[in-house]
Each structure stands twice: as structure tokens, then as C-alpha cells.
């Protein structure tokens, strides 16, 4: 028996959520799940609210199967998970800011996404007017005579997203880094609720522009699970081709950018050319450089007419990339900066369960293309690299290995393409057979789906509930960054300030995906 099956046995009711169940639980089972996660029997995959319930997603070790537990909110409260399991702290602060629901016993009472500038408190809940201007933010204290603070952001020096970093340093050594995020909060949840599927699909593609394919992929899969929509085989394969092109472009960009942060500009120059080639080939193949809005519920919006430009792209990358890897291997001055810098210890990685290269560079093997796997990854052979060192170098090497895997996968998938339709044109409105329900009868059960796809950054999770008119009733969009950002604070500890760009770039967390 696993924690997951034990919890299912204790459920009050099991809801028809696809493809994994959602269970309504009492406080006892909620606590049991929380303790199970905190003691390492399963990973926390998400924590959110829809106003009525608080939902906790846990991911089973080994199988990657999800289970969503739902606890009714009572008197505007729920028992804090963060009190026992710190990775839940920020998601709970977000729930409090957005819904006004209090995580009871939570050790951190500070607002997170709400900076006091919306003119509202609890915009998804009571939405009470707030006109008192911005809130002050109390950073965690660091005390000692030689300490000084460095405040960075929200407007950064490079061409990157906004956020605030507060460093406390002793000379060159960082003794504490605290992040303050929420600057790019766009109110995505509120925009999604009540939106048509078409509009929601467009919004989901803009959660984080660098992983637009992975987000559209996950959103489409969640909708298809909720509505029981079948996807044509050709579309399934084309989705994965796009997802791997996206991974390729991002990993190439990151490889160059990490080296550039150690002033090794030649790598950025070469990787920048390769990345540009991927984007141009993507435009030729799918009509958009970032392949935005190409994956939609039911299939894909554009067909691939000629796979030769993509095969030519792979040949071009293969002619250059191995030499760039050799260059990295032979540049002692570069490795002097990356090896043993910014170590994320495997123990911490186990507790926070970060996805993507960050987790896999620190002993984790989780890649949701492998487990639980989803089509078309479920019948193709590929390796998931994993290292234990946890430093910047390990995160670079995981990306290098994944670039090679992505090229192999693109080639394999293109070889399996067969002619056929690419879009199942379904109708999300269930009212074809008129419902003869009176007010007193219980409303028809909402249709719910949950899905995870592997972006270049890690697993993105989408949970969606669709009403009978085919509109979004509730939604949860969880970027991998949610469980990665806090770890950046841990890895910089004891490193010098000048190594922060390397640590940060090797993490490459999303601000937009986190802030929503």
C-alpha cells in the first residue's frame, strides 16, 4: 500500500476527475496527506483554492500518478500545510492574497502577490476595496555588524523579467537572499474564470512565453481529459515535435547565457546562432517562431507540410554543437566558475521536488515525459539524465544531455508521422440534449481534468473545471518555478555575490509563470 492508495481508501467521496481522481477528504485525511508529503512518501505537486475548497495535489514516487485532495474551506480557513511542509508556504500566501482564505497556523503572515496596489483585497474572493496605497514589505532580518544589504530590482540590468532580490552580504559572501515576487501578476485566474475555451486557450499560451508550447500542451490535455475528447494521432506527434523544438531552443539559449554570465561570450554567440536557427525552422514548419497558439484542445492548429527543414536543422546543430560541448569541457577558466558553485543539495531537492534540470542535477530522476508519461512519449525510448552534484556545472550538463535527447526525439517522431487529420473539432457545450432540471435538483456534475507536461523548465500542471456551457468554471496553472524559486535562495547561501548571475541563470525560473 502506498500513501496514495491509503488516502483514496479514506476518501469521503471520489470525484470524477480525469485521468486521476480527486477526493473529498476530512481534516484527518488532509493532515495525514500533509505528514506523508513532509516525511517524503510523496511529492507536493500543487496547492490552490477555488473559493469553496482547498485542493492539494500530490505526486506518487515511482509512478508519477497524481492525486488531488479537496478539503472544504470552513469559516474562511484551512489548516496550513506550510507549517509542516515549507514548500507550501508561498502557494498558501498566494491563496490568502487571491481568495482571502486564511491558512491557519501558517508561520508567514506577509502578503505575497498582493503588493497593496490592486485597489482590491482578495480579488477572487470578497474583492473588498483597498485604497490605502502600497503595502510596506518586511524582509527577514539578518543581524551582525559587518553585514550590508544589496537591493536589486524590480527593474533589472539585463533584458529580463522584473522581481526584487534582497541580498545580505558579509563582504563578498552572501549570507541571505530573499526574493520578493508578484510584480508581473496579471490576474490570470480571474481572467480565466468564465472565459470561453478559445479565450482560455489563448491565455494559457501566455502564462510564460518561453514555455508557451508546454503550457498549451498541458492546457489542451487537461481540457481533453475533462471533456473526453480524443486527439488525432498525427496531432499527438506534432505536439511533441513542437515541445522538443521549444526545449531545444531554450536549452541552447540557456547554455550560451550561463557561459556568458561567466564572461565567456563566444558560447553565447554560437548558441545564439543555433537558437535562432531553431526559431526560424519552427516558423517555417509551424508558422510562428515560438509556436504560440499552435496547440489547441482537440489537436493542433496547423499541420506540418514538410519535415525536411526540421531534419536539416538537426543536421546543422549536430555539426556544431558537439564542438561547443568540447569547448565547455576544455575551458578550465569557465569551469572554475561553474563547478562547485551554487550547490543544491539532493536532500533539499527531495523535499521541494523541483522539476526540470534543477531537480535532475540534484539527484532527482523525475521527468513527466517518462513517468507517468503521456502520448506520444509513452512508446518511445529515451534516457533521462540525472546527476548528484547539484552545482551550476551539473545543471549545464543536464541541459547538454537533454539537447541531444530532444534532437533524437524530434527525429523519431518525424519518422512516425502518418497522414491524417490534426484537429478534432469538438463542441464543449453539453446542452445539445436539453436538460430538464429544475432549480431544486442538483446541478449536473462539472467536468474536471488535470494534466502535466514537461516544459524545458520542468513539469507544468493544469487543473481545469468546465461548466456545461463549455466555459472555464475554475482553473489552476502551476509553473515549475513555484517550487524552484525558493531553492535559489538556498543555493546562493555562502557563495559570492558575483556568482549570483550564474546561479540565477542556471535556474532560469519564470517570473510570469510564478506571478500569474
Amino acid at each position, binding site marked *: 500500500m502506498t500513501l496514495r492508495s491509503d488516502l483514496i481508501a479514506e476518501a469521503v467521496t471520489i470525484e470524477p476527475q480525469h485521468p486521476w481522481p480527486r477526493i473529498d477528504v476530512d481534516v484527518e485525511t488532509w493532515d495525514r496527506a500533509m505528514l506523508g508529503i513532509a516525511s517524503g512518501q510523496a511529492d507536493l505537486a500543487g496547492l490552490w483554492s477555488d473559493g469553496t475548497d482547498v485542493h492539494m495535489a500530490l505526486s506518487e514516487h515511482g509512478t508519477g500518478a497524481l492525486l488531488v485532495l479537496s478539503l472544504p474551506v470552513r469559516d474562511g480557513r484551512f489548516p496550513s500545510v506550510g507549517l509542516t511542509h515549507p514548500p507550501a508556504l508561498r502557494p498558501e500566501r498566494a491563496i490568502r492574497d487571491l481568495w482571502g482564505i486564511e491558512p491557519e497556523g501558517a508561520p508567514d503572515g506577509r502578503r505575497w502577490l498582493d503588493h497593496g496596489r490592486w485597489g482590491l483585497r482578495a480579488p477572487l474572493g470578497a474583492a473588498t476595496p483597498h485604497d490605502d496605497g502600497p503595502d510596506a514589505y518586511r524582509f527577514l532580518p539578518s543581524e551582525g555588524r559587518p553585514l550590508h544589504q544589496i537591493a536589486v530590482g524590480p527593474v533589472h540590468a539585463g533584458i529580463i523579467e522584473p522581481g526584487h532580490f534582497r541580498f545580505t552580504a558579509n563582504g563578498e559572501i552572501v549570507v541571505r537572499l530573499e526574493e520578493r515576487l508578484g510584480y508581473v501578476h*496579471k490576474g*490570470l485566474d*480571474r481572467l480565466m474564470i468564465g472565459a470561453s475555451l478559445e479565450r482560455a486557450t489563448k491565455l494559457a499560451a*501566455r502564462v510564460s512565453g518561453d514555455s508557451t508550447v508546454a503550457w498549451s500542451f498541458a492546457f489542451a490535455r487537461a481540457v481533453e481529459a475533462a471533456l473526453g475528447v480524443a486527439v488525432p494521432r498525427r496531432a499527438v506527434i506534432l505536439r511533441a515535435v513542437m515541445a522538443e523544438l521549444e526545449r531545444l531552443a531554450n536549452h541552447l539559449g540557456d547554455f550560451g547565457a550561463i557561459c556568458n554570465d561567466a564572461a565567456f561570450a563566444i558560447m553565447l554567440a554560437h548558441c545564439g546562432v543555433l537558437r*535562432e536557427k531553431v526559431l526560424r525552422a519552427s516558423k517555417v514548419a509551424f508558422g510562428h517562431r515560438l509556436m504560440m497558439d499552435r496547440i489547441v484542445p482537440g489537436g493542433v492548429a496547423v499541420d506540418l507540410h514538410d519535415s525536411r527543414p526540421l531534419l536539416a536543422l538537426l543536421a546543422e546543430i549536430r555539426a556544431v554543437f558537439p564542438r561547443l560541448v568540447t569547448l565547455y569541457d576544455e575551458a578550465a577558466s569557465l569551469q572554475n566558475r561553474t563547478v562547485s558553485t551554487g550547490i543544491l543539495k539532493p536532500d533539499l531537492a527531495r523535499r521541494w521536488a523541483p522539476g526540470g534540470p534543477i531537480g535532475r542535477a540534484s539527484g532527482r530522476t523525475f521527468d513527466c515525459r517518462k513517468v507517468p508519461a503521456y502520448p506520444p512519449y509513452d512508446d518511445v525510448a529515451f534516457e533521462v539524465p540525472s546527476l548528484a552534484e547539484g552545482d551550476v556545472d551539473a545543471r549545464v550538463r543536464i541541459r547538454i544531455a537533454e539537447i541531444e535527447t530532444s534532437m533524437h526525439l524530434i527525429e523519431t517522431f518525424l519518422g512516425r508521422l502518418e497522414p491524417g487529420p490534426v484537429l478534432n473539432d469538438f463542441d464543449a457545450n453539453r446542452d445539445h440534449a436539453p436538460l430538464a432540471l429544475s432549480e431544486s435538483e442538483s446541478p449536473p456534475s462539472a467536468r474536471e481534468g488535470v494534466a502535466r507536461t514537461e516544459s524545458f523548465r520542468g513539469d507544468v500542471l493544469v487543473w481545469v473545471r468546465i461548466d456545461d456551457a463549455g466555459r472555464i468554471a475554475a482553473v489552476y496553472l502551476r509553473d515549475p518555478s513555484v517550487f524552484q524559486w525558493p531553492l535559489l535562495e538556498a543555493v546562493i547561501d555562502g557563495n559570492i555575490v558575483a556568482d549570483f548571475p550564474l546561479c540565477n541563470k542556471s535556474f532560469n525560473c519564470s517570473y510570469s509563470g510564478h506571478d500569474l
Partner: protein
Amino acid sequence: MRRLLAEGLFRRPLTEPAPSADDAGLADLVARVDAAARVRLGRSLSIREVDAGSCNGCELEIHALGNAYYDLERFGFRFVASPRHADVLMVTGPVTKNMKEALERTWNATPEPKWVVAVGDCAFDGGCFAGSYAIAGGVSAVIPVDLHVRGCPPDPKALLSGLLTLIEAEDELAKG
């Protein structure tokens, strides 16, 4: 490394010819650009990029301007780390309420003469995020905008022709 460097010496450059300036934007701008500024700045413009709430898609394409194909710096443009060194603010995103003050302060910190280029459909009018409780609006709802480059995201060529429009507009003024 030596082999890579040697190849770089002998290979023809990847850099592509410049796109033409955006005509519609050009006419729009000529009216606004001060001739005196053209004399003072020549063709060299320093750009400070500000993400005021974007999804990061626009940033990816702005980044691409620096790669060997577009090589922005050959036109005299360069990205700078501080608004105090900038002539142009390149702003992306629907402006979130949480970023509004930071954007205003960045604009105030930029010395005159200065121009604002709003990049992307969101920066134009809030795009698909318009109407949210957390969004202040497009860039022009917060600071004056001189040029809009539309697109979701605009590709590097569109960005480049938008920037060239800035210079061309100054040239027109100098002639006339």
C-alpha cells in the same frame, strides 16, 4: 577553441541586411522627434529595456536582436543597464499595477531627450490581459509612447525596423 575562432575569421558573416524602416510608424514619428535631439545624438541610441508585466515572449525576441543575424549594435543601438544612460525605453507587457510605479520611476530617471518604444500587443493596449484588476493598461496609460511595435511577440525584424524608424524620423527632420 582555436578552431572555432579561426573559422570565425574566414567564414562569411551571418548578419543580414537591414530591413526598411516602418513607413506608417515613420510618418507618425516625424512629427514628434525634436531636430535638436538628432544633432545631439547622431545615430547612436542607448536602450533600456523594461518588462512591465510581459509573459517573457517579447523579451526572447528582443534578446535575439543581439545575435549574429540581427546584430543590433551595427546600427549604433546598444542596450544599457541603467535608465540614466538611456535615450530609449523599450517597454513590454501590459503594465501591471504592481509594476506601474517602477515604470514611472524608470521613465523619470531617464534624461531628456528620450523616446519610448512600446513592444508587443500587450504593451499597445493590454492585449488579452486588458480589463484585469491587476492591469493598469497599455504602456501609454502610464507614460507617453512614441512608437508602437505590434505583434505577439513582434519578431526581431519588426523590432529592428521599428528602431530604425526612430533614426529615420530624425533624419527626415534634419533634412527638412
